Each structure stands twice: as structure tokens, then as C-alpha cells.
């Protein structure tokens, strides 16, 4: 069914605290949760809300994102009408330097896409792709349409320990005040930075930012909209969701997945599915010597060693006698016999050779960059 709802995901510069994890990729394509990339959560939320047109704005380091998204078929977005639209810099006549100082500037670079391919009167779901969560946008869309709001925000209780924005909600359920937080608690609700916004309003705000040489969505566009008497409907989402802004964050979020409650909120058995790129894989095999507990393991792994509190992506091999505790091993990484790893994040295609001992700490996990042999 047509619902006049469109999606735009922006994948701009990655937080530097993500270090090796973003050496070869944008934060949107960081592998997470054993078989996903972060962008899968935003894309799935959109597809699960019936969105059939999604534009992905890319700025830099997007090769791995291109590989991952391909034609969008795995998200049901390989379509004749609409579907997935990849929007690299320099791709449209509006683009300029290829470096965006903020979301509004990035949107400006794809202005012709918004103006020509998204019909007047439509709503746009706008969000970043550096978070993991299973967000039911249907609720937010329903609220947006029922209240007749021009902008609806998805917000949570609590706070982030990174710079974020908060919305103070009035008694009538609308927010009219936007607060910036350097991190930690503050007034109002924590903005998940997922907005439903009327396409025509978005174009107006883009014009405003362009004319006044502003480039930020919250600081400039939203603040201007509120200052002019605007109001934002707020849809609360208090299920599991978190932004991933540093290596430590990444590690903590990965270890949280081992808690059944987090798994149940992120991947509810009968709820909205998180889609990702499919791979031809066998099931995972555990040998006679395998000892496994409290772990999350994708298909195609071959386990002969010991795992305790680990996240294994597709195609990982752990040889006999290897001992792993609190580790994240990404696609096709191999841990050879007798190796011992603690608090290690091994990126894709790494090899940890025989009897190698590596340990990070929970506060400072050790990251093995993509393709390295240790």
C-alpha cells in the first residue's frame, strides 16, 4: 500500500573515537551484532514502516557501504519505482565540495532528489545510521498523522554520554524547546535523531539554512522552526537503542547483546525483523572439543575452541585449544589453535596465529584492524 512516506539516511563523517573500526569504512557500515551493519537498523525500521523509497546520502569512505547495500534487494528495495537510491557526493548537480559541514548541507547537496523524486505533501523519515535498535516507526507515523504535526521526533527517556539534543515536551504532548547536552542527563527527552518531517517544510528549512549559511539540523533548522512558533510531536521509544560513537561504546553495546532482554528487544521473535545482506553460508558447526557459553554466533562458523561471552560474525573459525572471552570476531576471522584472547575486537578477515596471547580490558578493548595477521 502506498503511504507517501519516504526515507533519507545520512551517513556523514564518522566519530574519530571509533578509531580502527572506521579506518576503512563509514560508521554506517560498522559490523554489529554478529551479522549486521549499523545501517541495517535504520533501513529495516524504514522498510518495516512500509517505506519503499530510501535515499542514502554518502560523504566519504563509502566503498564498504556500497558493497553492503548493493541494489537494496535484501531489504526489499530493489524496485522499478522508487527503491534504494544511493546518493554519493558529486552525484547530483547541486553537490559541491564533497565535504559537508552538517546535515542540512548534505541535504542541500541532494536537493534535486528531494524536490523531484519525493512528491509534494509527502513525509520524510530522516535519520543517521550510527545506532542500533529496533524502532517501530509505525507508531511515530501514526502519531505524526493523527496530530497533524509537521515534525515528529522519536525520543527516549535517559541520556547519552555523548553530545546530544533533548526535547522538552509540554503538557499537550508537543515539544517547543530544544536543549543541547554535552552528555549526561538534562531536561526533557533524549532525541534519537529520527525525525518524520514534511517534505515541503524540509525544503523550506533547507532554503533558510542555505540563505543564512547554516548547516546543522538541530542547531539551525530545528531551532529556527521552533523559534518561528513551530512545535514537534514526540513519540517515545523506550526499548533498547543506542548510538555507537567510540570503540568502547561498540564493545559495551556488543557485550550487552548477550543479555537475553537486550536480544529480545532488538530481535523480537515475532516482531519487526532486522534485515541485512544475505550470504550463502552453512550452519555453524561445534566440534567435540568446543566449549561455548553466553555467546552470540552467526551462521557459517566452525568452532573447535572455547568461547565465553563472545560475538561471532559469519564465517569465523576458532581452532582447537583457542580460548576467547569477551571478544567480538567479525566476518571470516580465524583464530588458530591455542590462541588466547580477552576483550579483543577483531575486524574482518583477521588471523590470530597459533598460541598468540592478546588481551585488552573492558575499558580499553584491543582492536585488530581489518585483514591483519597477528
Amino acid at each position, binding site marked *: 500500500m502506498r503511504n507517501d512516506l519516504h526515507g533519507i539516511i545520512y551517513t556523514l563523517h564518522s566519530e574519530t573515537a571509533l578509531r580502527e573500526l572506521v579506518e576503512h569504512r563509514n560508521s554506517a557500515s560498522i559490523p554489529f*551484532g*554478529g*551479522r549486521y551493519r549499523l545501517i541495517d537498523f535504520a533501513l529495516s525500521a524504514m522498510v518495516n514502516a512500509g517505506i519503499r523509497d530510501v535515499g542514502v546520502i554518502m560523504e566519504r569512505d563509502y566503498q564498504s557501504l556500497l558493497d553492503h547495500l548493493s541494489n537494496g*534487494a535484501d531489504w526489499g528495495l530493489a524496485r522499478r519505482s522508487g527503491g534504494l537510491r544511493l546518493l554519493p557526493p558529486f552525484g547530483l548537480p547541486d553537490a559541491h565540495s564533497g565535504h559537508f559541514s552538517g546535515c542540512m548541507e548534505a541535504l542541500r547537496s541532494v536537493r534535486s532528489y528531494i524536490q523531484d523524486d519525493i512528491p509534494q505533501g509527502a513525509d520524510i523519515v530522516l535519520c543517521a545510521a550510527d545506532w542500533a535498535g529496533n524502532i517501530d516507526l509505525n507508531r511515530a507515523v501514526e502519531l505524526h498523522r493523527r496530530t497533524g504535526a509537521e515534525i515528529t521526533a522519536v525520543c527516549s527517556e535517559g541520556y547519552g554520554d555523548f553530545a546530544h539534543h533533548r526535547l522538552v515536551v509540554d503538557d499537550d504532548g508537543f515539544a517547543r524547546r530544544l536543549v543541547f547536552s554535552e552528555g549526561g542527563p538534562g531536561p526533557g527527552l533524549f532525541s534519537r535523531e529520527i525525525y518524520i518531517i514534511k517534505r515541503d517544510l524540509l525544503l523550506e528549512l533547507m532554503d533558510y539554512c542555505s540563505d543564512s549559511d547554516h548547516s546543522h539540523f538541530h542547531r539551525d533548522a530545528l531551532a529556527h522552526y521552533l523559534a518561528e512558533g513551530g512545535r514537534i510531536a514526540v513519540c517515545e521509544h523506550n526499548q533498547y537503542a543506542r548510538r555507537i560513537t567510540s570503540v568502547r561504546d561498540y564493545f559495551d553495546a556488543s557485550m550487552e547483546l*548477550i543479555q*537475553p532482554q537486550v*536480544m529480545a528487544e*532488538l*530481535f523480537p*521473535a515475532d516482531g519487526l*525483523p*532486522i*534485515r*541485512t545482506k*544475505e550470504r*550463502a*553460508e*552453512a*550452519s*555453524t*558447526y*561445534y*566440534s*567435540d*572439543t*568446543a*566449549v*561455548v*557459553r*553466553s*555467546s*552470540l*554466533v*552467526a*551462521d*557459517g562458523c*566452525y568452532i573447535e575452541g572455547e*568461547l565465553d561471552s563472545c*560475538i*561471532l560474525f559469519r564465517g569465523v573459525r576458532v581452532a582447537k585449544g583457542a580460548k576467547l572471552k569477551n571478544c567480538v570476531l567479525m566476518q571470516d576471522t580465524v583464530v588458530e589453535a591455542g590462541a588466547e584472547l580477552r576483550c579483543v575486537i577483531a575486524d574482518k578477515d583477521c588471523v590470530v596465529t597459533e598460541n598468540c596471547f592478546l588481551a585488552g580490558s573492558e575499558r580499553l578493548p584491543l582492536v585488530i584492524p581489518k585483514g591483519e595477521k597477528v
Partner: protein
Amino acid sequence: MKKECIAMLLAGGQGSRLYALTANVAKPNLPFGGKYRIIDFPLSNCANSGIDTVGVLTQYRPMKLNAYLGTGQPWDLSADDGGVFILPPYMSAGEKGNWFSGTANAIYQNIDFIDVRDPEYVLILSGDHIYKMDYADMLREHKERGAACTIAVIQVGMEEAKRFGIMNIGADGYINEFEEKPVHPKSDTASMGIYIFTWSKLRQALIEDEADPDSQRDFGKNIIPKLLAAGEKLWPYRFQGYWRDVGTIASLWDANMDMLSQDLDLYDQSWPIMSRSPIRPPHVIGPEAAVRHSIVTEGCVVDGTVFNSVLSNQVTVEKGAHVEYSVLMPGAVVEAGAEVRFAILGENVRVCAGAHVGTAPDGTESWGVATCGPDVTVGPGALVAPGAMLYDDLVATT
């Protein structure tokens, strides 16, 4: 559009010797080896061999199979000029039309489908075999030997030979005699039910066979003997490697156990077996679980012990439950304290707390793999005997 070789996959059989497991689904659609369904093997072999057009002949309970195949995209078989085509029996003008009355008749009724593709060769496959084979190599031999038909054969041992269609081979290397399930086999060279025909020869043979009122319309029983009698060249393509017909409960269970000992390498990325997977997260192994010598698939949650078993997607083994030497199909649940040994649990079977399904071999005649058909619930504390075939829910007798 002209194709050199297309495949016709016979997927219409009921699989009656699998009883409750195939009461509602066609055999090719049965889960196998964790992630797969049986039909994934021939379909993946086609894709890996460069055959891009596969007609799938369906007849018995095809709905789930049709849904599983979809456009053929998971097997890379959704090209513009090829693809997977589901071919059920159909009616023609004047209300003429029939069910497929045999394997040969199924192809006969689809001569038009094949003619449109105008192939030189047609590959005939079964939907109930577990193996990896390069059909391109078989086709190469077929062409080199100038054969009308090439039949894939495997040595099965003289003991087993009487269960198979046996090919006797002359001094020139060509097949000179075919015997269906011989009482006194002359050799152990068995047909695998995989044929490549030169289409013009097969087309002719099918039309002649249709005119024969005594024919059973079967490739093994009728078409092959007729080609031999007509003096056509039949070449045996000798296959070495893992191959199993999974037509019975015992063979289905055995073949699943073979996957545990890696008799067929499913991890070899140069010949991937592809499948359509439900969208599920990685599997979760709980803090008190133990998993050894087992296959576990995405979407499973294991909090109990699992030894020597094959778990398809979304299987749950609760805390304190024990599973060994068993095959658990998608969605099966083994509740706390339940035990499942030497058993096959169909899709969505629930073994309630304290129930027992199957036991280890005890040397008695009545021992066998215990089987629970799809959607069956084994009530709390109930007991399913070894060798039992459970079609309906079972409540514990007091």
C-alpha cells in the same frame, strides 16, 4: 532464446516413506542439515555449474515449495534470460489435461516449455538427493562420448546393489544393460537418477513412450531400456563423492548425521550450497548450555545440552533440556527437563517439560529413530517410544 542445456527437476513426489514429515509438504521442501532444504542441493549445483534455467516439476502439496522457490533469487537463478520455473500439471483446450503419471510423463507434458528454450541437452534431476556435482563436467563427457544419454552412476557395494537401478557396462565403456533392483546384481554400478539427454533423442523417446499403453512412463523403467534397445549410446558418468538418497526416515537421519562428520563439505566457498533463509539474528548459546559435535543455525536459542545433533533455524532448547543424536527442524522447541534422543522433530514440534522422545539403540527389533510430524505437541511428561511415528499431539498416559 536458445540454451545449450537446461535442467528439469522432478519435485512432484510425495515421499510417502517419510510418513508424517511429508504429510503436508513435498519431500524436496524438507529441512536438511540445519540451514537447508533438500532442493537447495540440486538448485545450487545448477547455479554452480552454470545452468541458469531450471524447470521444477511439482505435483504433490506444492504450496510451501512454490513459496520457498519464489523467483529463484537465493540461488542466483533469477536472471532475465533464465530462472526457476515452477511447472505444475495443467489443463489444455477441450478440458484435456492430466496429473503427471510418471517421471517421463512429467517431462512429456512439458515438451513445449523445453522447445521454447530450444536446448541441445536436457539435464534431469531429482529433488531428493544430497550431493555436490558439477553438471558441466558431466555434460562435457556426454558431448565427448557422443551419447544420447549420460547417466550419473556411483559404486554402492554389492550388498546394496539390489536396492538400486544397476548399470552393466560393456568393454567399450558404454552401458549395455540396465536392471531395476536386480535380485542377483551383476555389478554395483548404480544409477543416481541424474541424466543428461540429447534433447532431440529424449523428445523422440518421450513421444514414443506416451504411445505405449504398457509403459509406466518412468525414466528408469521405460525410457532408458527403450534407448538401449534402440541401440543408442548410453554413457556412464562415474561420480565419486558424497551422495545420498534421503527417501526414508533412517536415510534422512543418517544423512543429517553425515553432515556432522563433514562427509560433505558445506563450508567450501568454491561450491556454496545456497538457501532461502528466514530473517533471524545469530543464534544464542546461554550461560549454562553445552553444545558439542553439533550444527546450530541462526535464530536458535540453546540453554540446554545439545550433543551430536542438527538444529535448523529458530530451534529452542531450554535450560535443563537434553538433545542428542537428533535432527530438529525449524521452530522446534524442547522445553526444560525434556529429553530428545535419536529422533527427528518436524517443524514447530513442541516437546513439553519432562517429556521423552526416543532412546539410544537397544538392540531390539523395535528400535528405530523416533519421529514427530510437524506441529505436533508432545505433552508434559509424555513418552515417545523409539521408532515411533507421531502424526498427532500426544498426552501423557497416567
